[in-house]
C-alpha cells in the first residue's frame, strides 16, 4: 500500500539526473538520484516540477519505469512536440541537472508480486512505461505468475525497451506487438488499431481471472477496457490508467 511509502504529507524532493538513454528518436529514459526516496511499487508514478527563474512553476505526472532500487527513480519520457515540460526533460536537462520530484503516488494502478493471479498488461504507446515496471518487478522477485503483455505501438521504430523485451519473453512471459501505422512486412496482421479479435486471441481468457492493467491514451484505454469487459472480464479486475495530451 502506498500509505506506508508516503509517510505524512507528500513533499517535494530534489532529484539529480544521473543517466540518460535513448529509447526512440523522441523518447528517453532518465535515471534520477533522489536522496531519501522511500521506495515504490510497480505502476506508481511521480510528479515532476520545474520552476523558472521568474518563479513560474509547472508540473507533470510520469510513471516510474523500473521497480524500486534504493534511491534511483527511472522515468521514460515521451517528448510531446509542443509540450512545456517533456522537451525540457528529454533534450535540455543535462546529466547532473536537477528537478523537483515528489512521490511515489497512486495506490490503485499497482501490481504486487505476492498476487497469485495471472497478469494481463495492455499498453498503448508510451503506456508501456508503468507496465514495464510490473514486468521487471516480476523478474526481480523471481515470480512465476504467467504474464502476457500486449503492446500496441505505431511502428517497430517506436517500441520502447525493444531489446530487453525480446529477452524477457521466456519463462511464463508472452509478448505480442500490435502495430497501428506501419507493420513489418512479415507481420500477417498488418497495421491497424487493436480490436476485439486481437484481445480475444491474445489476452488471457476471462475464465483465468487475470489481473488486467491497461495503460495508454484515453481513447485506447476506453476501447481496450470496454472490450475486455465485453469478453467477460470482471470490471473490478480491469485497472486502467489514461494519459492526456499535456506534455
Amino acid at each position, binding site marked *: 500500500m502506498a500509505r506506508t511509502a508516503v509517510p505524512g504529507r507528500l513533499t517535494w524532493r530534489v532529484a539529480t539526473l544521473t543517466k540518460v538513454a535513448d529509447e526512440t528518436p523522441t523518447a528517453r529514459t532518465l535515471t534520477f538520484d533522489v536522496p531519501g526516496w522511500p521506495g515504490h511499487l510497480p505502476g506508481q508514478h511521480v510528479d515532476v516540477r520545474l520552476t523558472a527563474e521568474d518563479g513560474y512553476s509547472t508540473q507533470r*505526472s510520469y510513471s516510474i519505469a523500473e521497480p524500486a532500487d534504493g534511491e534511483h527513480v527511472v522515468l521514460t519520457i515521451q517528448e510531446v512536440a509542443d509540450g512545456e515540460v517533456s522537451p525540457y526533460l528529454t533534450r535540455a536537462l543535462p546529466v547532473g541537472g536537477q528537478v523537483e520530484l515528489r512521490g511515489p503516488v497512486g495506490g490503485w494502478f499497482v501490481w504486487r508480486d505476492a498476487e497469485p493471479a495471472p497478469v494481463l498488461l495492455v499498453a498503448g504507446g508510451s503506456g508501456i512505461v508503468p507496465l514495464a515496471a510490473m514486468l521487471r518487478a516480476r523478474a526481480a522477485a523471481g515470480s512465476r505468475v504467467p504474464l502476457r503483455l500486449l503492446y500496441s505501438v505505431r511502428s517497430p521504430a517506436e517500441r520502447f525497451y525493444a531489446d530487453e523485451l525480446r529477452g524477457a519473453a521466456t519463462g511464463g512471459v508472452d509478448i505480442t506487438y500490435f502495430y497501428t501505422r506501419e507493420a513489418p512486412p512479415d507481420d500477417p496482421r498488418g497495421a491497424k488499431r487493436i480490436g476485439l479479435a486481437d484481445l480475444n486471441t491474445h489476452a488471457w481468457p476471462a475464465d483465468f481471472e487475470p489481473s488486467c492493467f491497461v495503460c495508454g491514451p484515453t481513447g485506447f484505454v476506453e476501447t481496450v477496457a470496454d472490450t475486455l469487459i465485453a469478453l467477460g472480464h470482471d470490471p473490478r479486475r480491469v485497472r486502467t490508467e489514461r494519459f492526456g495530451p499535456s506534455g
Partner: protein
Amino acid sequence: MTYVDGNVLAGPLAEVFGVDFTAVTGTCASCGFAAALATLRVYSTAPGFVARCPSCEEVVLRLVRTPTEAWVDLRGARSLRVPLT
C-alpha cells in the same frame, strides 16, 4: 473535451491528506455508482481538477489549489470507503 483518470489526482490528494486516495472507493451522490477514485474522469484544463463519475458524469470531486491552501469540494460523493490495511 478530453479527460484523464483519477490516477492523476494521486499527488494532489496525497499532498492534502497524506495518504493515497486513488484506491479509496467513492460512491457517487447522484447515481450511487461506487468505484475507486482512480476511475473518475478528471478534467484538468480548468483552474484546478474537476472529477466526474464514470457512470453518470456528474461532478464527484473538485480540487483547487492556491499558493497557500487547497480547496476540496466533495459534495458529489455520498461516501468514501478508505482501506485501512
